[in-house]
């Protein structure tokens, strides 16, 4: 099968970056420093370098179908080492945002659901609260992982390290209006 080069995807993605100028991923020389440094590379469908090449080549479907950017741990190891000064981590964030907005991600991914749940909590209360986060993603766990989580939670509870009620900030109204100046709230409200 052959593909055609298109550059619209690359441009779409760069426009999602706060500073696309300072993050010139078309300048990537495919040296592989990022992927060599990445602690998660072994678990990714494509290495970060391959994702950059695919973005530059316009292979949108393959990129969206990959788990790579959801598996990125935001550790910035790639970013500080890239000889071309490309912020690969920021690109991964941009792909995550793109994926959520377009509602397109690899089947079975937990990352998107978790991110949304986490974000909704903050927007509602101003703070995070672990227990109410759990239900939104825990169903996608396999049985053993599920029990591991329950076990962890119980132990933490016994040590007094899990809160019972969600904390709230005081000026919540102002806070919500502040957020509305940044983005339309949509389903998060």
């Amino acid at each position: 099968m052959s593909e055609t080069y298109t550059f619209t995807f690359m441009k779409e993605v760069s426009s999602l970056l706060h500073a696309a100028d300072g993050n010139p991923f078309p300048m990537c020389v495919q040296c592989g420093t990022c992927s060599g440094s990445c602690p998660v590379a072994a678990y990714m469908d494509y290495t970060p370098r391959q994702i950059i090449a695919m973005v530059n080549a316009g292979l949108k479907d393959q990129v969206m179908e990959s788990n790579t950017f959801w598996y990125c741990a935001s550790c910035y190891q790639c970013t500080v080492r890239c000889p071309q000064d490309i912020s690969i981590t920021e690109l991964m964030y941009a792909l995550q945002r793109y994926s959520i907005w377009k509602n397109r991600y690899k089947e079975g991914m937990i990352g998107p659901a978790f991110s949304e749940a986490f974000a909704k909590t903050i927007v509602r209360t101003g703070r995070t609260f672990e227990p109410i986060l759990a239900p939104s993603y825990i169903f996608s766990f396999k049985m053993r992982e599920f029990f591991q989580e329950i076990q962890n939670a119980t132990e933490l509870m016994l040590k007094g390290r899990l809160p019972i009620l969600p904390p709230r900030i005081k000026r919540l109204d102002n806070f919500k209006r502040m957020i509305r100046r940044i983005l339309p709230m949509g389903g998060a409200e």
Partner: protein
Amino acid sequence: MKEFAYFPGCSLEKLAISYHTSTLETSKKLGVKLQELEDWNCCGSTTYFHIDELLAYTLTARNLAIAEKTGLDVVAPCSACFKNMFFTAAHMKEDPDLAEHINFALEEDGLNFSGNTKVRHLLEMFAQDVGPDEIRSKVTRPLEGVKVAPYYGCQILRPRKDHEEVENPRYFEDLLSAIGATPIEYALKMRCCGGSLIISSRIAALSMVRNLLQCAVDQGADMIATACPMCQVNLECYQQSVNQEFGTQFAVPILYFTQLMGLALGIPKKKLGIGKELVSASPVLAAL
């Protein structure tokens, strides 16, 4: 006396309560005044960048603006919070358009951030602003013979590119030496622990935890000292899972560096939250 604005971050409220209490105790002992920000909000950790970059900056900018009102530099004990604050401040300084947009939103809460507040991580604050000499002079119970692996993790250091020390910093080691402990040298001290992956890609995260524990234990560590609640939880809570997954036998206590400092400064264990950890540190500390 040194004084800082203090942004504890969500985790320190409960999950990392011992980090919070030990921070307050050690600061008091060292004559550092920490003034908690009034009505701070969650900074969004890394997750918010997945949803909306601008919103992520705004959430952090709100805290920065509150800090700026105090006229003090702000310290954050959590590496993710620190990174968010550090770079939000930096980006807003570089990019007036971004600053304007964000300050427009902050108006709703009567706030404004002009970019003048300096952001420090708690570890930097103790290890660099207070300094090892000052700490050494206050130590009453040096942690002699305890071999501690200093764990920097990711976001204390990265993605700052402007200095070459991001690949081999030494200040955590210096701080441990100052309290009489023996810092061990191990290659993965700045390698990511996979904290943010435990939900989305569990097996990757577990293997990252395993590699870290393995490397520290191979180099003879009795325990690991962390400077971030995410790292602490990740390295500690998932040891069981790692052992199940890989057939290993890890039982490495993971303490906050502030707890170790507190011990050396003669603060009672209880006040430092020692005993709340899931992998008990008692066997190691008993030798003292």
